[in-house]
């Protein structure tokens, strides 16, 4: 079975999934899994052999011959797509079932197949025109998936924001591909590093793909969209869809000649985005918004790697660049795995309790032990802690940065701030997810809804287990995953072609395994010892206060307040405070809301300027006929001036 044949089968099964999906849910699931499997196998074959698969057909689409290419880089993203797509399809089967959502579930299944198809097209198409088509179709499918639950106003608003932002990005891509076609004389894509005149295009590319990737400060659409979408959609959005933006950045930064400035810009944006993203995440009270902002952070980490790699290429392919790129690409997978796991976990919580507000949850571990433990695992992974996968990729990026710093190449020293910021990001991520997991799952139930929660169904649990397994495997056996990553790196820059890991990944794996095993051993030992000594259940010790109530629990807001306070200048939290008054105070409230600062403080004013211009224009269409004829005269005069005056 050649990759081509497998891909064809995958495409066919997904396409038939579009047709049959709305009617037959089971068949749909089978088809999606078949498609995912086909894509996965073909991509893995390419990653194993390292031989890119390319197909130029005589079949014209939109006046351009179809040209597909599956090299290491696209295979890497295709693997991600097929795994996450398949797993969350399984999850969706139970989470967004016909019984619960009779009017939106059927359409959702069709759009799902469309989304997977179009994203596959994005990574495969090697022709500008077809790339754009696939890109826009993927945007559109994602939009309809986000707004599956159209009845809710905030969902529609979030969907529109997503659509508008993505289209703004796409407009940049229109310009990008148009200019590319104009300068190269064709829509066909491929390596063109040697054409220096293409350098300015990289800024268009950066903006266009940056919007989709949720690169700070272009991430405005991301939080609301990810938070309001159905959880399986949030999963594929943050697991795969934003990675498509990363794919575009990596792909074209590999193909186009990139000025060194671009490397610096990406590095700086990445570092800032990582730090600010996690700061925003820390301050959120909505579980899914928190996860969404954390995606901004991880995109930042990936961009740090990419930026360092670009600096490396600018310094005749210094090996540290390769290290950083490998880290970034591995982080693409890792983030896909653990962020999807977390979103699915959040989905189960939402499914069980009907709320995303962390201050309404708590103590869920009793009702849903599986979700709790898996979410905890994901939290460890996303905080980049050993022995899980998040640490591996961050470690690689770190090493790249450290080598760059210690390479003593004069200007490269400027990466050192990035290292410190990355470290702070890591610590903040730890704080953020210590908050998220413990506030939601530990302690006492804060509301009735939380008390009446129930464990999620087998399919949902199974898909979460699969992702957790992925986190564990990548974490414990990183060396197994080096060859595919190195294929991707090779596809990005042939100068770095080599399958031997430049760093002792095996030893890292050994340490991780040791820690994991030791942890299990000691934990069970301690548990047994405590049991042996006699376990007694008692009231929580509240310093002598005998009747602790739920309201006395530490809340998420207060947990985050210290660190969030350091970023108050950025977060600009809005607080509605009603203090207790009088001798016998009745009730007091403190509601704190953290706005999407970039959107509400920067973009909204700008858009208001545009709207004012529009209002002024509309006033000109006031319906008075004589004025209309005056306009004709004005047009006449303006045109004559345009003829007479030459620029």
């Amino acid at each position, binding site marked *: 079975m050649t990759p081509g044949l497998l891909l064809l089968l995958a495409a066919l099964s997904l396409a038939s999934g579009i047709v049959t999906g709305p009617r037959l849910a089971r068949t749909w699931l089978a088809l999606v899994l078949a498609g995912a499997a086909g894509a996965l196998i073909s991509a893995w074959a390419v990653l194993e052999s390292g031989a890119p698969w390319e197909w130029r057909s005589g079949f014209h689409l939109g006046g351009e011959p179809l040209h597909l290419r599956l090299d290491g880089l696209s295979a890497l993203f295709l693997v991600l797509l097929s795994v996450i797509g398949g797993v969350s399809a399984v999850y969706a089967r139970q989470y967004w079932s016909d019984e619960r959502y009779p009017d939106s579930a059927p359409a959702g299944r069709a759009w799902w197949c469309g989304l997977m198809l179009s994203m596959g097209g994005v990574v495969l198409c090697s022709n500008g025109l077809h790339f754009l088509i696939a890109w826009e179709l993927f945007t559109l499918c994602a939009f309809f998936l986000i707004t599956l639950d159209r009845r809710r106003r905030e969902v529609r608003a979030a969907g529109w924001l997503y659509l508008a932002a993505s289209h703004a990005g796409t407009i940049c891509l229109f310009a990008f591909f148009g200019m590319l076609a104009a300068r190269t004389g064709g829509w066909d894509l491929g390596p063109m590093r040697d054409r220096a005149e293409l350098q300015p295009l990289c800024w268009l590319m950066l903006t266009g793909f940056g919007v989709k990737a949720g690169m700070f400060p272009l991430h405005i659409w991301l939080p609301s969209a990810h938070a309001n979408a159905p959880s399986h959609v949030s999963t594929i959005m943050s697991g795969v869809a934003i990675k498509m933006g990363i794919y575009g950045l990596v792909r074209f930064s590999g193909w186009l000649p990139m000025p060194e400035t671009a490397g610096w810009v990406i590095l700086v944006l990445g570092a800032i985005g990582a730090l600010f993203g996690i700061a925003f995440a820390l301050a959120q009270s909505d579980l899914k918004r928190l996860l969404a902002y954390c995606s901004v952070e991880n995109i930042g980490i990936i961009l740090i790697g990419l930026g360092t790699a670009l600096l490396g290429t600018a310094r005749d392919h210094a090996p540290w660049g390769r290290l950083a790129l490998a880290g970034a690409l591995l982080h693409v997978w890792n983030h896909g795995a653990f962020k999807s796991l977390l979103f699915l976990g959040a989905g189960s919580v939402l499914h069980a309790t009907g709320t995303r507000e962390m201050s309404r949850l708590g103590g869920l571990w009793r009702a849903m032990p599986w979700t709790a433990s898996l979410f905890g695992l994901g939290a460890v992974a996303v905080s980049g802690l050993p022995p899980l996968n998040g640490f591996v990729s961050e470690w690689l990026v*770190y090493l790249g940065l450290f080598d760059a710093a210690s390479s003593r190449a004069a200007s490269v020293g400027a990466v050192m701030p990035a*290292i410190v910021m990355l470290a702070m990001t890591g610590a903040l991520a730890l704080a953020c997810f210590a908050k998220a997991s413990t506030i939601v799952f*530990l302690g006492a139930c804060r509301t009735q809804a939380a008390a009446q929660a129930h464990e999620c169904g087998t399919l949902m649990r199974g898909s979460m287990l699969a992702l957790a397994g992925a986190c564990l495997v990548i974490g414990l056996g990183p060396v197994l995953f080096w060859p595919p990553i190195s294929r991707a790196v090779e596809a990005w820059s042939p100068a770095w072609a080599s399958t031997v890991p430049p760093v002792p990944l095996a030893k*890292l794996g050994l*340490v991780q395994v040791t820690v994991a095993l030791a942890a299990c051993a000691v934990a069970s030992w301690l548990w047994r010892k405590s049991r042996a*000594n006699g376990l007694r259940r008692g009231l929580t010790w509240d*310093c002598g206060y005998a009747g602790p109530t739920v309201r006395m629990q530490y809340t998420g807001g207060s947990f985050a307040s210290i660190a969030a306070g350091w970023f108050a200048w950025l977060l600009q939290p809005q607080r509605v405070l009603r203090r207790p008054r009088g001798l016998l105070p009745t009730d007091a409230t403190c509601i704190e809301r953290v706005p999407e600062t970039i959107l509400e403080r920067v973009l909204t004013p700008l858009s208001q300027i545009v709207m004012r211009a529009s209002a002024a224009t509309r006033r000109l269409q006031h319906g008075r006929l004589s004025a209309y004829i005056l306009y004709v005269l004005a047009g006449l005069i303006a045109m004559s001036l345009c003829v007479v005056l030459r620029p």
Partner: protein
Amino acid sequence: MTILQIIARLALWLLVAPLLPGIINKVKAWVAGRRGPPVLQLYYDLARLWRKGVVLSTLASPGFVIGPAVAWVAVASAGLLLPLGPAGGLFGFRGDALILIYLLALARFCTSWAAMETGSAFEGMGAAREVSYAVLAEAALIAAVLSLCIQTGSTSLVTMLSPSASAGAVLLAAGLFTVLLAENCRVPFDDPNTHLELTMIHEVMVLDHSGPPLAVILHGAAMKLMLFALLLVEAVLPLGKLTWPTAAGALVGGVLASTVGIGLVESLLARLAFRRVPLLLTTAFLLCLFALLIAWKGGGGA
């Protein structure tokens, strides 16, 4: 051979670590003019706790016990990664410095997880403080590691930690010492033996722990202290240049000195107000940063 080495080092960490808190307490007692508890007090406590039963909060999940265990493992393995001066490292390799830092982070995650188990107001407070201040502490730590890395051009602890004492060493020492105080929750950041829960970080996180878990936590804390003391000494003293016995002596002496230093600080300083803590930590970070810049400058020519 390596197996034996591992066991030996493990034993060392297990047995020696609890000594340091004892020494600190002794020093404090001397300064205060009291006799104070015996140096081996912690050993007795651990032994007693290990035999005691456990009282679990009704809200607590198994994580309440698993957390301390994993934290202890993390600290212990971080200790094993740390080279012991002349004895060298067990298996030093590129980038193990980062693993060490992140193992400590893992320990932090697990302790705060365990703290949040009980749904108590106080322990949440402690956990929040722990994870928040760690942000600055970790920045300082990474800056220190980075300066060592630039000094030696390596990211492996074994080579990193035998620097020629440069001008930055003093700054580095000051910075790392402050980080040590912060990470181990000593005065002026925290007061290990106050009983006013509102003013504590580490102690308040373990309010509800009892029996073996508490023993594990205490022992882990002791190991962490020793780890930071070792790190400090090795980062500052040019042990690599000395012969075996002198180096060993210097190492032990250094550790003792820093322990005594902690004791003195505790008895001479008062605990800071919490809103001052970030300030002090930022100072530590800046110290490490200056050390880094000096290393960078010094390295620039070479």
